C-alpha cells in the first residue's frame, strides 16, 4: 500500500512536473526584429530568423517573416502557424523602428520587451530612416547573420565611443525619468549597406527630430567623458586639420539662484593632431587651431542646445541634473522654465601631442 502510494506520487510528479522545453536548435530564434507602421492603426512586425547549416558555423543565412497585426505577441502566434519550429524571442538583441512608427510612439512595443522575463535589457534599439522591413530585406551583410551584423555594428560603435550608448534599459530610463528625453541611433540604408547616419531624438516615446553625424559627435561629448573620436576643423586658409580626441571631460554646473536656474556646461577636450593634409604646422599656429576649434565646438553646441530648447526636448538630461542639485524640484515648473533656460557652453581645447613627427 505504502509502496503503491510512492509509485503513484512519482508518476504524478513526472507527469505534471515537466515544463515546456525550448531546445535551442529546435526553435526559431531571431536576433533582430523590426516594427513598422501599417494602415488602420496596426503594426507590421518583421523578424529575421537565422538559418543555420549543419557543421558550417560560418555560413548563416536569414529568412524574413513579416506580418501585420495589432500586437506583436499575436503576430508571433500567426507566424508560428507558418513555421516548422516555434518562435522563441529570448535571443532578441536589436529592435528596429520605422521612422513613421517611431513618430507615433514606441512605448507599447517596448513594454512587451520589458515585461518579458526572457528578454535582455541590454538589447539595442535603433530608428530606421525609412521602413524597418525594407532594411531587413536588403542584403547588407554577406558573411554574417543580419541580426549579428546589426548588433555588432551598434556594439562596436558604442564601445569605440562614436555613438552615445542607448539600449533598452537606458531608453526606458530616460523615457520614464523626469527631466530627460531619450534618443536612439538612426540607421540608414545607402547603396544596400547599413550605416549609422545620426541620432534620432525623442520627446517622451515619440520621435521628433534627428541630428546629423557631426552633431551626434558633439552630443556624445556633452553626454559624458569620452576617450575616442576625431574632429575636423577648417582653418582660415581653407585647409583642414583633424584632431583626435584622447580624453574629454564635461562638467555641468547650476547657478546658485534657484528661482531662475542657470546651467553652465564646461567641456575640456584633450586632442592630438594627426592629420593636417600633409602641411607642416608650425608651433605658433597651434593656438590658431585651438581657437578655431573651440569656436567651432561652441557654436555647434549652442546651436544644438537652442534646438533642444525650441523643441522642448531634453536629451542631455539637464532637468535631471538640475533636479539632483535643487531641493523640491518640480517637473511642471521645470518644463515651463526650460524654454527660456540660460545655458552657457564653455569649451577648452588642449593640443597635447602631434604624433611621432614634428
Amino acid at each position, binding site marked *: 500500500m505504502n509502496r503503491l502510494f510512492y509509485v503513484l*506520487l512519482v508518476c504524478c*510528479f513526472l507527469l*505534471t*512536473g515537466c*515544463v*515546456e522545453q525550448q531546445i535551442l536548435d529546435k526553435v526559431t530564434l531571431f536576433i533582430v526584429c523590426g516594427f513598422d507602421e501599417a494602415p488602420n492603426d496596426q503594426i507590421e512586425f518583421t523578424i529575421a530568423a537565422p538559418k543555420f547549416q549543419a557543421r558550417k558555423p560560418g555560413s548563416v543565412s536569414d529568412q524574413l517573416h513579416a506580418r501585420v497585426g495589432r500586437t506583436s505577441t499575436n503576430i508571433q502566434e500567426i507566424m508560428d502557424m507558418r513555421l516548422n519550429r516555434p518562435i522563441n524571442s529570448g535571443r532578441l538583441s536589436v529592435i528596429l523602428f520605422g521612422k513613421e512608427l517611431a513618430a507615433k510612439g514606441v512605448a507599447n512595443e517596448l513594454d512587451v520587451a*520589458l515585461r518579458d*522575463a526572457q528578454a*535582455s*535589457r*541590454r538589447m539595442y534599439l535603433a530608428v530606421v530612416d525609412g521602413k524597418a522591413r525594407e532594411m531587413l530585406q536588403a542584403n547588407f551583410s554577406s558573411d554574417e547573420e543580419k541580426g549579428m551584423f546589426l548588433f555588432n555594428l551598434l556594439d562596436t560603435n558604442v564601445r569605440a565611443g562614436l555613438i552615445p550608448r542607448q539600449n533598452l*534599459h*537606458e531608453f*526606458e*530610463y530616460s523615457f*520614464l*525619468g*523626469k527631466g530627460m528625453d531619450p534618443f536612439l541611433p538612426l540607421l540608414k540604408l545607402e547603396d544596400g549597406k547599413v550605416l549609422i547616419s545620426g541620432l534620432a531624438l525623442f520627446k517622451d516615446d515619440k520621435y521628433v527630430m534627428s541630428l546629423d553625424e557631426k552633431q551626434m559627435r558633439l552630443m556624445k561629448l556633452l553626454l559624458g567623458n569620452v576617450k575616442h573620436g576625431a574632429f575636423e576643423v577648417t582653418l582660415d586658409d581653407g585647409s583642414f586639420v583633424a584632431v583626435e580626441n584622447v580624453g574629454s571631460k564635461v562638467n555641468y554646473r547650476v547657478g546658485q539662484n534657484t528661482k531662475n536656474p542657470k546651467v553652465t556646461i564646461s567641456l575640456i577636450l584633450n586632442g592630438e593632431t594627426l592629420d593636417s593634409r600633409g602641411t607642416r604646422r608650425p608651433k605658433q599656429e597651434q593656438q590658431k587651431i585651438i581657437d578655431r576649434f573651440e569656436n567651432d565646438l561652441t557654436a555647434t553646441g549652442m546651436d544644438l542646445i537652442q534646438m533642444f530648447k525650441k523643441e522642448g526636448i531634453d536629451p542631455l*538630461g539637464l532637468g*535631471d*541634473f538640475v*533636479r*539632483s*542639485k*535643487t*531641493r*523640491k524640484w518640480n517637473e511642471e515648473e521645470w518644463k515651463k522654465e526650460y524654454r527660456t533656460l540660460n545655458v552657457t557652453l564653455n569649451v577648452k581645447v588642449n593640443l597635447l601631442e602631434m604624433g611621432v613627427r614634428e
Partner: protein
Amino acid sequence: MKSTEHPRFTLSPYLVFVLIHSMQFGSEYLTAANKPIQLAGQDAWISVILCGIIFHIVIWMIYRILNRNETDLIHIHPLFFGKWGGGGLNFVFIVYFLLVASYQLRLFIEIMQVWLFPDLETWPLALVLLVLVYYIVAGGFRVIAGICMFSLVRHITIMSLFFTAGYFHFNNLSPILDHSLNDIIKAGNELTFPFLGVEALFFCYTFIKTPEKSQKWAHLANVVTTASYLIVIFFSLLLFNSEQLSKEIWPQLSKYKFVQFPFIERFEFIGAASQILWVIPILCFCLWASSRTFKIMFTVRQSTVLPMLLFLVFTAVCLIPGRDRNEAVQTLLSEIGFYMVYAYIPFVYIVDIIRTKVRRTV
C-alpha cells in the same frame, strides 16, 4: 533554570552570525527596495540604517531576556504567562513560523514561474523542496546551520552586480535629505519586514555552546544584513529611477539582466536559480523551530511532528494561487512582524524586568 542541550548538539557561537544573517536576509530582498524608494526616494538608505539600529536594540533586548532566564522562549513563555497563556503564545509562534515558511516557499515558486518556467506547476516544486527540507531538518540543528553557512555563497551573486557599474547614474543619489523625516520613517517601517528574522534567537539559544558570548555575532549579523540591504538599495537607486522601479516587481532580478560575462550572455537565469539559497535556510529553520516547539509543548517526537507540519505547509503553498494572494500573505506577515518587533519583544522585556524586580524584593 538552565537548560542547554547535550554538548554533542551545541554549536560554536559564531554560527549565530550565519543563522541570524540567513534568517534576516531572505527572498524578500528582491522586492525590499521598491516601497522604501517610492516613499523616501534617494534617502531610502537612511531608512535602512535607521532600521538596522532599531534591530540592534531588539537583539540587545532579546539577549537580555534570554541571558537572564538562561533558556529559550519556548520555556520562558509558560514561566511568564502560566501554562495556558504560555502554551497559547508558543502556538502563535508555531503558526507564525509555518506562515513564514509557506510565504517564502510560495514566493520562491512564484519567482521560478515568472522568471524560468511559466508553465511550472506549484505542487511538484513544493514537494521536492519540502522533501529536501525534511532531509536537512532530520539531520538536526547542526545540519541546518551548515546549510545556512553554505548559503553564504549567495553573496557572490550580489557581488556580481558590481559588473553593472557602467550603467550607474550617480545623479540619482542627490540631493540628500530631500524627503521629510516622516517619509523616511515610513520607508523604514516598510523595511521592518525584510529585517525580520532575529526572533530565531529565541529558539536556537539553548543550542549555542556559550550563548552569552554569541551576542556580538548576532549584532555582526545585523550589521552585515544592514550592509547587504544598503547595497541592494544603492544598486536600485543607481540603476533605475523611481519611475522605473514603480513598474518593476523584482528589481533585484532585473538587475542581473545587466551582468554579462564573455561566456554567459545572461545572468538572470543564474540569479533566479540561486534564489534557492535564500529560501532553503529559512524554510529549514522555520520548520525546525515549529516542530521543536511542538515537541516541547506536547512531548511528542519531533520526527513524527515534522512530516505533518511539512504537509501543512505543502497544502498552504498549493492553496496560495498567485501574485495577489501572496502579496496579501506578505502584508499579514509584515503586520505580525511589526507588532512582534515593536510591541511583543519590548513587552516581554518589561515583564522580565518586573519579574526580577519583584523576586528581588520578595
